[in-house]
């Protein structure tokens, strides 16, 4: 007996226009998805070339979900995206070369080499850098929403978590506080069916995770995370509801993690058929087809887009590669903040 609502696919250009995206926005969305996948594919190559230290994670299969939610956020909204959510950073405007620099531990990565992978965020773009510990950023997202509520600002905080991380206490405390105080928060559960090697049924025993919203007194929605427009529409609804004082929403976005947990993992524990089934629902393919069928997306447009994305990525790679490694002299800089560090748009 599921209690969450299941979202329908988006049927037409008109419907999505009503939800807030015109044709240009749709092409932009598609572009963000291409850039997202491109960054991670290039990253993977860099990793194999030995240019990326440590491990390497991708969000293949999650591009629609990440970009869809980010497209629905307002410029003043904030969020705490995770390791499968590169699309959020891309959509919010982080420059791809800085991501490559981050991957490679260079001085110009957002963390200046102090942290790796997608453990980064540009706070000027309203994002807060994730930590490894999952889902430790959810209470932080709720705290951001609390600030908005105290100041009576019409802003919304978006917090991400995986279906695996749903089992941790932090998820509970964060959603409970948001529910009790009806804080302007939207919780996005990236349900990619696996937590490392652990399948869903060993992480939770309810029918859908969106059902948990009920335990916190707000609404839950399940959405097909390979359908960027459905994700966008549901995220938009939830964000605008929160903005207007309607309290939190929990959106469970269903996908499949299309690669291993990280590059070292061949995911042999995932049934092959599952990969095959979900490969047919590749979010980029799917959206391209939709655009062709519903928005007269032409071959020329597509070629042009692909070309410009390719160029951006190539340029980004070279630029990142010119970024120096951090100097060992900077090792202990910034363990403590100085008052000047608070001169950011957010801290003021």
């Amino acid at each position, binding site marked *: 007996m599921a209690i969450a609502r299941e979202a329908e696919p988006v049927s037409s250009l008109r419907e999505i226009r009503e939800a807030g995206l015109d044709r240009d926005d749709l092409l932009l969305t598609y572009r963000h998805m291409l850039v997202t996948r491109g960054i991670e594919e290039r990253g993977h190559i860099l990793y194999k070339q030995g240019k990326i230290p440590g491990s390497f994670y991708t969000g293949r299969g999650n591009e629609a979900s990440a970009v869809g939610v980010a497209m629905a956020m307002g410029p003043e909204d904030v969020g705490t995206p995770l390791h499968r959510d590169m699309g959020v950073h891309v959509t919010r405007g982080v420059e791809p070369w800085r991501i490559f620099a981050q991957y490679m531990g260079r001085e110009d990565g957002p963390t200046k080499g102090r942290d790796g992978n997608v453990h980064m965020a540009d706070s000027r773009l309203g994002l807060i*850098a994730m930590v490894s510990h999952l889902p430790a950023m959810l209470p932080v997202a709720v*705290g951001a929403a609390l600030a908005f509520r105290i100041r009576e600002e019409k802003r919304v905080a978006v917090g991400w978590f995986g279906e695996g991380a749903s089992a941790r206490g*932090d998820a509970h*405390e964060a959603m409970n506080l948001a529910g009790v105080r009806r804080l302007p928060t939207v919780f996005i559960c990236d349900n990619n069916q696996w937590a490392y090697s652990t399948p869903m049924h060993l992480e939770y025993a309810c029918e859908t995770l969106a059902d948990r919203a009920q335990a916190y007194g707000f609404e839950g929605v399940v959405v097909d995370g390979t359908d960027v427009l459905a994700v966008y529409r549901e995220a938009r609804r939830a964000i605008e509801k929160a903005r207007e004082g309607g309290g939190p929403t929990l959106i469970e976005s269903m996908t499949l993690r299309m690669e291993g947990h990280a590059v070292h993992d061949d995911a042999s524990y995932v049934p092959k058929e599952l990969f095959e089934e979900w490969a047919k629902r590749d979010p980029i393919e799917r959206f391209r087809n939709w655009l062709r069928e519903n928005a007269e997306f032409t071959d020329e447009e597509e070629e042009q887009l692909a070309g410009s994305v390719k160029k951006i990525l190539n340029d980004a790679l070279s630029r990142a590669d010119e970024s120096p490694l951090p100097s060992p002299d900077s090792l202990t800089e910034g363990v403590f903040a100085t008052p000047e560090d608070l001169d950011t748009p957010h*801290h003021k």
Partner: protein
Amino acid sequence: MAEKTYLQAISDGLRQEMQRDKRVFVIGEDVGVYGGAFKVTLGFQEEFGPWRVIDAPLSETAIVGGCTGAAIMGMRPVAEMQFADFISCAWDHLVTVAAKQRYRAGTPVPIVVRLPSGGGFSGGPFHSQNPESSFAHIPGLKVVCPATPEDAKGLLVSAIEDPNPVLYFEHKHLYRRIKAEVPDERYLTPFGKARVHREGDDITVVTWGAMVYTADEAAKQLEEEDLSIEILDLRTLIPWDRKAVLESAKKTSKVLVLHEDTRTGGFGAEIAATIAEEAFEHLDGPIKRVTAPDSPVPFSPPLEKAYIPQIEDVAAGLRELAEY
């Protein structure tokens, strides 16, 4: 200036900051309607409203983690733990997120967590602890332990102004017992500057919090035995005033480190180790530590008394050093 208890000084300092700066808000269990378990925020909700004095659910991670999020969005949150012991429930957040966010991601986390700590009332194993040492080991956190009403206010103001996560330990045994003049106006007591609680020449005692008074009583006893004891009140553990400690050690050549927390791996070890490394040639005797033993804090009065360092324990330690 007016005479105030340590508790009143904290309360007034906090109120003054909230009056002055709209970004400051308070969140914790029972801090609103009830005014907090120790009544530090009594009347605050009437004055500042329910969104600046927030009765939170019983959720330490949500409380402290929420503060981090609010701080990044420009607020200056002050969380109250009902007892310092319960900060264990927000350990992960503090250590994982708050402590490292500036270093990793360039994002400062200006939050204050108020922690009523310490024993002496048969609070038992979970209402008496002094967990400051655990946090002092984590790079990125500041740790504050005022001993006097004046410092309690001034260090709280500094904590709120500091751009880092600050753990503010307020010792429950000082709350109503210790009274002194406290300036009415706003002032900042700087972090990392020890206070010479008592000047002396023969032996240095390095301590903080409630133990300052225990040391003082012991020093008075020894004064009668013609021993002149210097007492340094560290005020803040992170940062701590290495310079003052090393100078005093060089002056007296003998040091006793005193704390209410347990011994092994307590912050006293850091102080002793630093002296052993940096003032070695000035020492005329071993560096002595007087601390609680390595056990939980027991409930029953005779056990608790044996657990918490007493005046006699300090005096005995000082005599031993004197005779060395």
